């Protein structure tokens, strides 16, 4: 995974404060728009209730009174008695005097004309009732005028309500459109928020979780894409530093372990580590029923060599010996500096015979190996080895047997390999 080029980063708190503010602003604007529409609807409702409906009632009352006037006018002509005609006339005058008619100029004029005509008709009827029918044609014109006025007023009243209701419907439709738009806007904003959260918070956290779960020195350092959130980036950097620290600590641990288990002069493992590993190898071999052999070797006349050439020459011999061991033994074989010029061996999956052959070859090779001292002098050193089977028993017992065989090799003249069983 490659790290993208550096991008500007934002603090999560700042980013979410900005997002929350944007959402609050957006929501406020939507609420304000809806509140404006609601206010308009409320105003239209109040106008309808306080102005329009009373106005409609006034128109209805006026239309009803004019129609009443017209009907009473008809009754003047249809009445069969003077009393009936007179009662209609009084009613006509009463209706024509109603404030609803008087305050409407057009109606007042029509009512005045109708009343005047009908009063004259009534007076004429009082003199000669048969003559009034000649006036009926003229009354029909007045009656038609009143009827048209009634129709106009009814339509006018209905139109007032229609206008207000249309206005309310328009506002409600606008409000509905705004509401749908607002919901879409809020929905888009929430989708954007979810996408941003997923991209810049949830997925980085998942990557961090995965990286922490698999964090170890065996694995390579985790790599992260360049995060835009500063906090996420800081955590990712910390994880990378943690991995580097783990790797460094592991290397140091390995180094310390090496120093603790190795002999400083020869580079071979020391006796403590040998005993620890050998014990485990023995148990493993014995559990599987595999052969295992141990040996103890000792450089011949090493004290004399030190006395003759000095301790530095002794050290050179020991290092040369270890180097030759490293070249000659198998990878699986274990050898340590047991103490002074004494060395211990362990041969897994090797019988005594196989180990003896191997050590014999090595003994010969070492005996023929020229060791150059610091002053250029070449010397040769021999090796005595005691060998013992370790397939049964403990490591201590096996080493004890090998030591006994070594003692026997020394006693028989040195520079030889002796197997413990041969001496038992």
């Amino acid at each position, binding site marked *: 995974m490659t790290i993208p080029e550096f991008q500007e980063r934002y603090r999560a708190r700042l980013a979410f404060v900005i997002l929350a503010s944007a959402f609050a602003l957006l929501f406020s604007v939507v609420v304000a728009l809806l509140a404006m529409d609601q206010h308009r609807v409320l105003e239209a409702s109040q106008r309808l209730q306080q102005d329009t409906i009373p106005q409609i009632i006034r128109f209805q*009352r006026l239309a*009803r*009174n004019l129609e*009443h006037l017209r009907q009473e006018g008809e009754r003047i002509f249809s009445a069969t008695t003077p009393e009936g005609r*007179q*009662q209609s006339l*009084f*009613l006509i*005058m*009463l*209706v*024509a*005097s*109603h*404030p*609803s008619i*008087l*305050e409407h100029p057009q109606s007042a004029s029509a009512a*005045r004309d109708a009343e005047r005509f009908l009063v004259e008709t009534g007076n004429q009827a009082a003199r000669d009732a048969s003559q009034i029918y000649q006036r009926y044609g003229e009354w029909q014109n007045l009656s038609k005028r009143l009827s048209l006025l009634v129709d106009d007023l009814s339509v006018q009243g209905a139109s007032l309500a229609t206008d207000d209701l249309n206005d309310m419907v328009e506002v409600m439709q606008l409000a509905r459109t705004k509401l749908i738009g607002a919901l879409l806007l809020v929905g888009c904003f929430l989708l954007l928020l979810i996408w941003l959260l997923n991209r810049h918070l949830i997925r980085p956290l998942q990557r961090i979780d995965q990286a922490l779960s698999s964090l170890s020195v065996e694995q390579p350092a985790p790599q992260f894409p360049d995060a835009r959130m500063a906090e996420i980036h800081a955590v990712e950097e910390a994880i990378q530093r943690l991995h580097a620290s783990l790797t460094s600590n592991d290397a140091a641990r390995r180094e310390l372990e090496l120093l603790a288990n190795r002999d400083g002069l020869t580079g071979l493992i020391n006796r403590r580590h040998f005993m620890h590993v050998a014990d485990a190898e023995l148990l493993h071999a014995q559990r599987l029923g595999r052969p295992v052999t141990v040996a103890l070797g000792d450089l011949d006349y090493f004290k004399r060599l030190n006395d003759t050439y000095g301790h530095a020459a002794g050290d050179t011999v020991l290092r040369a010996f270890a180097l030759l061991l490293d070249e000659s033994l198998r990878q699986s074989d274990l050898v340590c500096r047991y103490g002074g010029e004494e060395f211990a061996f362990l041969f897994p999956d090797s019988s005594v015979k196989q180990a003896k052959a191997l050590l014999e070859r090595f003994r010969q090779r070492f005996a023929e190996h020229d060791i150059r001292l610091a002053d250029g002098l070449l010397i040769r050193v021999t090796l005595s080895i005691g060998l013992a089977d370790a397939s049964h028993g403990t490591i201590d017992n096996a080493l004890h047997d090998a030591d006994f065989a070594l003692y026997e090799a020394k006693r028989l003249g040195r520079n030889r390999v002796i197997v413990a069983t041969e001496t038992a």
Partner: protein
Amino acid sequence: MNLLRTLLLLLGMIAGIVQASELKVAIGVQDPAQLAMSGNAIPPNMPGTELIALNDDMAREICRRVHARCTLSYVPFSEVLPGVESGRFDLGFGNILRTPEREKRVAFSAPIWFSSSRLVGTPSKAAAFAGKLGQPVSLDNLRDARVASLEGSLQLTFLNAVASQNNLTVLSRKTASEVIDTLRDDTADFGLLAMLSAYALLNRDTTRQIEFVGTAVADRGLGGSVHIALPRQNEALRQSVNQAIAAIRADGSFQRIARRHFALGLD
């Protein structure tokens, strides 16, 4: 002792409730003969009975709606407003128009119907004055005449206001019937009355001596909405009465009451 005090307090409260549930109602009469009557004992053949009966029914219906018992009193119109103002009456009926001056004295209910004013007179007087004026008689062109009206009415107030300008002799009478009488006995040339009041009187008049003259007038304080007068200090009662009026209108009771006494709707 404490028990006695509590009982007295409860009795006082109950007495207060009884007191509060009884309304004294003043109804302006049309004729002096109606003053001596009580309850709804006014004979149906008396002048202006329809208007009295209408006010009776309205008052009883409102009292029923506000859960109160009505005590009706028939008084001259001129005593209705002073009676309500002084607290003698709780409700005042009588084709009462609302004006700013009256609002300082009493409170008004929601409108119950609408009214205008109109001149009344004999046909001969109307013809004579039309000849003298050169045009049909109206309240605007009336000059050099004796005009009668109801005591305490806005019509009388208007006439007094224009009397000197139009050289009018203004006569005041206690009831609308007495105003009509001034026309019959030629004490006055014309009368100026509330339209509904005049209608109620003339519709019953079989002699047909008196008729409406000129056109009706609703401006200059002579017409508009008619209300019930209430004491100014009792806003709760006004609210209750307004609710009752709204209910009476809403369930059609008002229209039924009006139609019972008049051949048309009054609102």
